[in-house]
């Protein structure tokens, strides 16, 4: 599934987050603008509510008229009909009917103040007449989008309305129940603020905000369109970023696929190694390199082992095929059988060496752990190889002090014989082999050196490799399997020691065995 790819998932998450942010931002902006407009409108409406409410004359001692920010509330302001002055007068004016005609005069107050006279009929009472000063009535136009007002008496009967007021303005239900501060409401395209005076009358000022709403709708569409464009741009950018971020991963994956397909030489191109992916690439590359090296070594070993086995098999095949080609004499058959025997013995030796090495390397070979004197083992080995040294006219100098250690004397004798054999084999005529030993702080050291041509510097690190031969042509001849040094090293290491080689070309080679000493 393509949509399960990291790139698609990144894109999806990114898109969702981006969309949420955009929606939040757009919504907030829209809301802010809308409430700003409404607040402004409410302010306008309330400005018009004040004279209306004042015209409705609150009763004496009742709760004061409260307008947040309204210029007429409680303040001994410029308006002579302010509630503070009104309050006590209204209290006296509580006697109904005594000043009935003054309601009409009230409308002539300069400054828009309500009539402050006493004895006015309260709204809803007979004789009450709602009047609005002319300059304030001018605040309410006759256009469809101008402000309008509607006033109801306590009994719910409409007392007055401006010209532009729609015919179907209902009496606010909540206002009937509880007198209080002005409440704004939306009714269709109308914004209305109603105010229930403590006296029970209800004033409502409103205006059609169809234009504003249309403007806001347009704004919403514009915001949505702009948001869409930004989202698109953002997603494109996100895709680009995701692609860039994913590319190294895809490189790594493509390389890994090639490597999995068998091409171990492939490497991830890591131009910039100083980031997370670069470091991952570097780690993977070094892993691949080690894998390739291990694989190459394994392949080399298999190839070498096959090579070592092929030669004796070839001998047996050609020998027998030649012999069977025609009738032969007994001597010829005998020669053939002998050659086959030699080939078979060589194969057996190779098999045994390979198995021994495999067991040693797998830690399956059980070694004896007995105390023994390595110098005695060396002495035995020297006696064993002396005839070979004599036929080659080589001198063996052996000066080894007692070297007590714990281990497998037979295996160690195998190691020493191998080292001595090599020292004799790779020697010059009339050369010498020198064996020395010493004890150094709990370690037993045995050195076998010769006066041969030495080991070339490029061969030195590899001579302990299986089947590695400094002289390529010594393959198989002379009973060598090419595993001797590898086995010796494995045996010494199984004893917890080490086997090292050093050489100055032309000045012989020295093999150093280090074993943990006894006691």
């Amino acid at each position, binding site marked *: 599934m393509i949509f399960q790819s990291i790139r698609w998932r990144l894109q999806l998450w990114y898109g969702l987050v981006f969309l949420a942010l955009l929606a939040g931002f757009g919504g907030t902006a829209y809301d802010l603008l809308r409430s700003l407009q409404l607040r402004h409108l409410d302010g306008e409406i309330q400005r018009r509510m004040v004279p209306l409410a004042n015209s409705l004359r609150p009763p004496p001692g009742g709760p004061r008229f409260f307008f947040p920010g309204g210029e007429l509330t409680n303040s001994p302001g410029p308006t002579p009909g302010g509630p503070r002055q009104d309050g006590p007068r209204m209290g006296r004016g509580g006697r109904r009917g005594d000043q009935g005609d003054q309601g009409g005069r009230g409308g002539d107050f300069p400054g828009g103040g309500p009539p402050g006279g006493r004895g006015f009929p309260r709204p809803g009472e007979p004789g009450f007449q709602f009047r609005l000063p002319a300059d304030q009535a001018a605040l309410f136009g006759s256009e469809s989008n101008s402000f309008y007002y509607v006033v109801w008496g306590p009994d719910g009967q409409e007392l007055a309305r401006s010209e532009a007021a729609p015919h179907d303005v209902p009496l606010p239900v909540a206002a009937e129940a509880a007198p209080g501060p002005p409440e704004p409401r939306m009714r269709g395209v109308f914004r209305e603020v109603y105010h229930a005076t403590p006296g029970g009358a209800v004033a409502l000022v409103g205006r059609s905000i169809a234009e504003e709403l249309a403007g806001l709708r347009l704004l919403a569409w514009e915001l949505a369109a702009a948001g869409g464009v930004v989202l698109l741009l953002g997603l494109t950018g996100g895709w680009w970023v995701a692609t860039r971020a994913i590319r190294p991963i895809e490189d790594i994956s493509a390389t890994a696929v090639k490597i999995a397909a068998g091409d171990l030489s492939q490497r991830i191109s890591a131009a910039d190694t100083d980031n997370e992916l670069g470091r991952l690439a570097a780690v993977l590359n070094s892993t691949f390199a080690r894998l390739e090296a291990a694989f190459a070594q394994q392949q080399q070993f298999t190839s070498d082992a096959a090579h*070592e086995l092929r030669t004796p098999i*070839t*001998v047996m*095949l050609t020998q027998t*095929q*030649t012999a069977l080609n025609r009738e032969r004499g007994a001597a010829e058959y005998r020669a053939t059988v002998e*050659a086959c025997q030699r080939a078979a013995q060589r194969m057996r030796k190779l098999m045994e060496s390979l198995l021994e090495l495999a067991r040693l390397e797998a830690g399956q070979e059980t070694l004896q752990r007995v105390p023994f004197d390595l110098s005695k083992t060396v002495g035995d080995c020297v006696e064993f190889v002396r005839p070979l040294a004599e036929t080659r006219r080589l001198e063996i100098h052996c000066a080894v002090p007692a070297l007590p250690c714990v281990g497998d004397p037979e295996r160690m004798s195998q190691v020493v014989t191998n080292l001595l054999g090599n020292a004799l084999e790779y020697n010059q005529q009339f050369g010498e082999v020198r064996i020395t030993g010493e004890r150094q702080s709990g370690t037993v050291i045995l050195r076998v050196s010769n006066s041969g041509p030495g080991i070339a510097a490029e061969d030195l690190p590899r001579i302990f490799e299986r089947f590695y031969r400094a002289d390529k*042509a010594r393959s*198989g001849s002379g009973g060598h399997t090419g595993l001797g040094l590898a086995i010796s090293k494995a045996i010494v290491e199984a004893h917890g020691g080490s086997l090292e080689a050093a050489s100055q070309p032309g000045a012989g080679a020295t093999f150093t065995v280090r074993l943990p000493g006894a006691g």
Partner: protein
Amino acid sequence: MRILIVEDEPDLLRSLAQALQEEGYAVDTAADGETGLFNAQNYDYDAVVLDVMLPKVDGWEILRRLRKTKKTPVLMLTARDQPRDRVRGLDTGADDYVVKPFDLPELFARLRALIRRSAGRTSNVITAGDVVIDTGARQISRGGQAVALTAREYALVEFLALHQGEVVTRTALYEHLFDENESTLSNLLDVHVSNIRKKLGAEFITTRRGHGYCVGGGG
């Protein structure tokens, strides 16, 4: 046909040489690269069987140096069968490549093919007048009748027939039909030629006195 075998495994060298001799080839042997290279450079062998892993000078080096002076067909013997080894062998100038262990009949067939190709022939069957030589089966027939020849006689006829129409000198015949241990001073060659004439007709081999022998090509 004279063949050089360069192989350091004594048992293999011995049995290969014996088998090839019994096939009618003159066989020289070399147990190390140095001798092998020297022989290959100084004699005109019909083919060289060359082991890759050799003491002193290895097979690749022998091949490289030999190719500077000679076009002798070379069949590489190797115990390595990695494709890159084969490619390297063929690219260095080897004409064929046989992986150990091999079957003798296959090795022989490849050698025959090598020699045939180097003589510019594509078929196993050579015709000279009414004499037909099947180099694959190593059989000769005259007028449809099989004729029995000794291995050496067959080798002589095959060599002359491969160089049909050319005059082949006695020296060349000695070089190609007898190995380095056989005396070139003997009249062995005359004896073989005379025997062949008895079997395949006196006119089959023409003698160019002072030059050598010739088969076919209008005498």
